């Protein structure tokens, strides 16, 4: 290989490194190391007054995991959290899809306004918006019920479904729908045979953006859900703040992280299979 081309190779490599290094560093310091600390904590014993028991006295233990596996309630709560996350994702998708289509089909100037409206709720505080829902749901006799939790979850996460869908749908070539119609496809066939398959990458990334945060969310079930509506997020929060059992909280967090990774892996495998878009 000529010298000049290997030199450009080297400088391209250097540029790549310079660009990727800061975010990589950030992730190592603020995600990977804390995650490892947390993983280590899950194999320790709880301290008498919270925190962790001194390593020299009590050493490592599998107590936290034994505790989780012994009681079926933890598996049940994890399963319930997955169900809530799944249902929230599905409802977000059903609500967001027509909205995204509507936005894409509006004239250009109105489109920007509608996108602004979608992200406008972020301008006010998250807790205030949840308290607002308490005021709305209270008189309807729905407060502190599973319905209230789902409503809150869907409300909070809807923009995260709309935006990826909008970004995806906006890129579709309108000529494809015209071609489909020309070749004999009616309205539903055009949607299911053209729009829907082409939007799958948007559906998957929107779903991941909703599903994963909902799994870990504790504020919404805490404020809108009843006492019986404990989700995995609340459970973890309780271990750290109320029960002062850090190892148990860490173990539950780790299990949740693994579950989320499994979901993310599955979704990216699905996207890869449909890579030709």
């Amino acid at each position, binding site marked *: 290989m000529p010298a000049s081309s290997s030199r450009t190779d080297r400088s391209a490599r250097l540029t790549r490194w310079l660009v990727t290094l800061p975010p990589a560093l950030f992730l190592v310091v603020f995600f990977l190391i804390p995650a490892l600390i947390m993983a280590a904590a899950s194999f320790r014993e709880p301290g008498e007054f919270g925190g962790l028991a001194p390593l020299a006295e009590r050493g490592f233990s599998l107590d936290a995991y034994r505790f989780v596996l012994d009681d079926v309630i933890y598996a049940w709560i994890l399963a319930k959290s997955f169900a809530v996350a799944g249902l929230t994702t599905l409802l977000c998708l059903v609500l967001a899809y027509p909205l995204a289509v509507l936005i894409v089909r509006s004239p250009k100037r109105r489109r920007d306004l509608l996108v602004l409206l979608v992200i406008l709720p972020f301008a006010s505080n998250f807790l205030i918006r949840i308290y607002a829902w308490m005021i709305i749901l209270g008189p309807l006799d729905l407060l502190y019920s599973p319905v209230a939790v789902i409503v809150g979850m869907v409300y909070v996460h809807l923009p995260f479904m709309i935006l990826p869908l909008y970004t995806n749908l906006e890129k579709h070539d309108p000529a494809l729908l015209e071609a489909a*119609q020309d070749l004999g496809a009616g309205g539903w066939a055009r949607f299911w045979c053209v729009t829907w398959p082409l939007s799958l990458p948007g559906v998957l990334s929107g779903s991941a953006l909703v599903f994963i945060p909902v799994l870990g969310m504790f504020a919404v079930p805490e404020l809108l859900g009843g006492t019986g509506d404990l989700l995995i997020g609340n459970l973890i929060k309780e271990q750290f703040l109320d029960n002062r059992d850090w190892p148990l909280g860490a173990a539950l967090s780790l299990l949740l992280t693994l579950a989320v990774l499994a979901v993310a892996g599955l979704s990216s495998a699905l996207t890869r299979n449909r890579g030709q878009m």
Partner: protein
Amino acid sequence: MALLEIRNITRRFGSLEAVKDVTLDIEAGEFFTLLGPSGCGKTTILRMIAGFDAPDAGELYLDGRPLAGMPPEKRPVHTVFQSYALFPHLTVAGNIAFPLEMAGRSRDEIRRRTTETLALVHLEDKGDAFPHELSGGQKQRVALARGLVNKPRLLLLDEPLGALDAKLRERMQGELIALQREVGVTFVFVTHAQQEALALSHRIAVMNEGRIEQLDVPEALYSTPKNRFVADFIGTINLIAAAVVEASRHGLRLAAPGLGEIAAPVHGAVAVGSNGALAIRPEHLRISGHADRAGLKNHFAGAVVEYLFLGDVTVYKVRLDNGLLLEALATNAGPGRARFHEIGDRVSVEWRHDAGVFLPD
């Protein structure tokens, strides 16, 4: 009865009349072309045939049945789009099978017809490829195959060769003619490229500003254009301003200012005294070195001002002594030398008395 009858259709967009009272018939098995500059209304007519647009006035009939109110998906008419509009998430075979699936054909039939059609466009080995893996010419063939597979009554082609480079376009023209002959489907082709239209079509409607200027076979359009627009739009043509001095069955005598008398053939009725122009193709003009022959019938003296050597032919531009600039084409078939005249040479430009066509203003 014609396959497609277009009766007095008009289409307005705001104050613009894109199509003005157009009437034409397209016969079964024909390769019919709508030719014209951009904005002449040809694409609007195509969209009305496909059903994506509807006329404000007038009717379209397919096989004698009115098309009004029938949505595009119900019309036995398919389109090959300029951008091809292939479905990116489907393979080549999936794209071709699409219209068959929409028509609810059986799985066996879909497989058989898809395979047949792939062979028809010479893409037997590309069935499993995705559109983004194909070259421009291959995409073009998939678009054609997809349009033909369900045997439409009409195949509409909207400038389908526009995106291809010159060499490939020439090859696709040949393939298109062969394909149309083989499948026997009626083609309605839209283009602004007059050479393409001449090469491909059985009949051509030349359009301008929403109207049909002339509808004829390519040879007739080329040799006897009806008006200046058609004469000018198709090929290259010299226009020599002249007035009719005498008209008889045998021909016209024209008077051209600064040139004198010209003998011309007669096509249709022309009134004595009317003004117009003699339109004559460059290949009808002959150039000779004998400038002194000027004065004979249809011989005029001038000087070479420019030439374009194109290999097989050379195009000379000659300025006549009255200031008129004419273009003459000489084939380079002589032995050895390919050019005979240099810039500045005094020459005589001459043509037969039955060449050209007089176009009244």
